[in-house]
């Protein structure tokens, strides 16, 4: 709901780009709340939520929506296909649809691929997102090096445990830092969240089911804030992060505690659930 703002004035939105003069930008003129809330987020063409291209155009042309985060590309720009296997398929093997799509893409306008998205086999969108969230002041080099040092620290700790453990325990110890990372973040995701809703001059914290993306974001945000604030002055981030990730992997530690606190608050404010209208 924070993605669409309500301009209290009734002026139409100023049309910035003459390049996209043909494409209509959605303008808000006093339409009702449900219509706005029901519309899905427009920045949808990503790996996680796959909105069909047609629906995206329809949404853009829906009246009653202003986008806060918009791109300079018009709706006719298609997303780039970053996949070596897709392009390596010999022409004989393609089906009808794929052939049609290939021909279509030859004439369509395509957006530039972001610098962070590669066709590397080792690429992981979750790790990239986490690195971006850890980044401060645009220093991606530092953030990436911290991330790699954290993964290395997790791996070395697990190897030590492995060598110290007996034969039966060795089967249970997980040494892959990527599975540990994914599982830890999954364990930290809250199921239900609180949202401040204005009623009668007061803000009430209303329990609300969270979407996938919001949950992932909260898990990562909590992990990063926890590691930044609650550590000794001289302790380095990779050390602290690796420790927290391992604890979260085993469902212990302060981040899991924060998730449980959130759940308990939501349970306590159960009575206010009626204030939610979506």
């Amino acid at each position, binding site marked *: 709901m924070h993605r669409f703002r309500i301009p209290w004035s009734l002026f139409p939105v100023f049309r910035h780009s003459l390049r996209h003069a043909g494409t209509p930008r959605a303008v808000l003129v006093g339409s009702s709340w449900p219509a706005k809330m029901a519309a899905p987020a427009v920045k949808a063409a990503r790996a996680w939520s796959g909105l069909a291209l047609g629906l995206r155009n329809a949404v853009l042309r829906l009246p009653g929506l202003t986008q806060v985060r918009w791109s300079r590309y018009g709706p006719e720009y298609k997303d780039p296909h970053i996949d070596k296997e897709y392009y390596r398929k010999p022409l004989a093997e393609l089906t009808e649809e794929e052939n049609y799509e290939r021909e279509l893409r030859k004439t369509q306008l395509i957006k530039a691929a972001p610098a962070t998205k590669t066709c590397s*086999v*080792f690429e992981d969108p979750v790790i990239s997102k986490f690195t971006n969230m850890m980044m401060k002041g645009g220093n991606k080099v530092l953030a990436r090096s911290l991330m790699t040092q954290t993964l*290395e620290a997790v791996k*070395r700790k697990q190897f*030590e445990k492995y*060598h110290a453990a007996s034969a039966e325990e060795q089967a249970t110890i997980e*040494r892959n*830092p*990527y599975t540990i990372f994914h599982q830890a973040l999954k364990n930290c995701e809250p199921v239900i969240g609180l949202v401040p809703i204005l009623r009668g001059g007061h803000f009430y914290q209303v329990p609300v089911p969270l979407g996938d993306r919001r949950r992932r974001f909260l898990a990562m945000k909590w992990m990063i804030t926890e590691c930044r604030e609650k550590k000794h002055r001289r302790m380095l981030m990779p050390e602290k992060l690796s420790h927290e990730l391992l604890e979260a992997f085993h469902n212990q530690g302060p981040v899991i505690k924060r998730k449980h606190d959130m759940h308990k608050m939501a349970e306590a404010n159960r009575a206010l659930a009626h204030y939610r209208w979506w």
Partner: protein
Amino acid sequence: TMLKGMTRLISRVHKAKHGEQHEGQHYNIPLQDLKAVFPHGLPPRFVMQVKTFNEACLMVRKPALELLHYLKNTNFAHPAVRYVLYGEKGTGKTLSLCHIIHFCAKQDWLILHIPDAHLWVKNCRNLLQSTYNKQRLDQPLEASIWLKNFKTANERFLSQIKVQEKYVWNKRESTEKGSPLGEVVEQGITRVRNATDAVGIVLKELKRQSSSGIFHLLVAVDGVNALWGRTTLKREDKSPIAPEELALIYNLRKMVKNDWHGGAIVLTLSQTGSVFKPRKAFLPQELLGKEGFDTLDPFIPILVSNYNPKEFESCIQYYLENNWLQHEKAHTEDGKKELLFLSNTNPGQLERLCAYL
């Protein structure tokens, strides 16, 4: 590939029998040996790897094999030959040096190993004016640390070698002629003020007595370009100190001259710890400067380069056998091609890449 499963030398082949057919394969160093022979001198990332895998495995590579061949055929009556290992960053110069040192230790040579000469020309807190020579400066901390490690590495020789001169430390203490070298080392460790002089004495005695034939001397210096360059150290009046004015460096330069016989001198150039040298410099002329190059002049340069495909494959197999590459895609052909591209077959880069994959 043909090396699958053969990356380890299955029988513990004696180092003396390493030959060209073993190129690309790893050999194991037992951990007790490691502590005895290398109290200092292993690169820190290698130490971490040894701790993680619980075993120390070095790859046998061409530069080391070449050097071993030369060392096996040294003529101890001729003056000591200087070998200089040079190459770009991360190609394995320090580990090749460690391979040579391990070989010589197994052959019962006396190892004089300076792990990193750059540590002696920068970041030095306490500099004392030398008691022996008023113009020079002492570094008590570095000297005492080095003496401790030297003692651990060469225990058995310290009682055999006898000092050939009387040394007076101060009014109360002196070392008589004919007492074992161990006493000088002890004196340096306990009396930190005289540690630098103790180091100087050790070097002088070893140089004099190496010709006698009781032992073979291997002088191994890592980062030898620190001896002829500039230092980052300054006196109290902020005037810069030249390397000659440091007693440790002065004595070490005398050691590296080839006016003695009965051993060999193996040196490594290193840009990584150096001061005031450009990052891309790796050739001997660039790193040693005119003065250093002229002093070292007749030397045998040995280039240490990146992995060739066979060695790269062997390294990946070694990591896979130890389950170090945990990423699922790292086992595939695509993953290996990507690692090859990202690391450019540079051993250091490959190690750093595989650490987080």
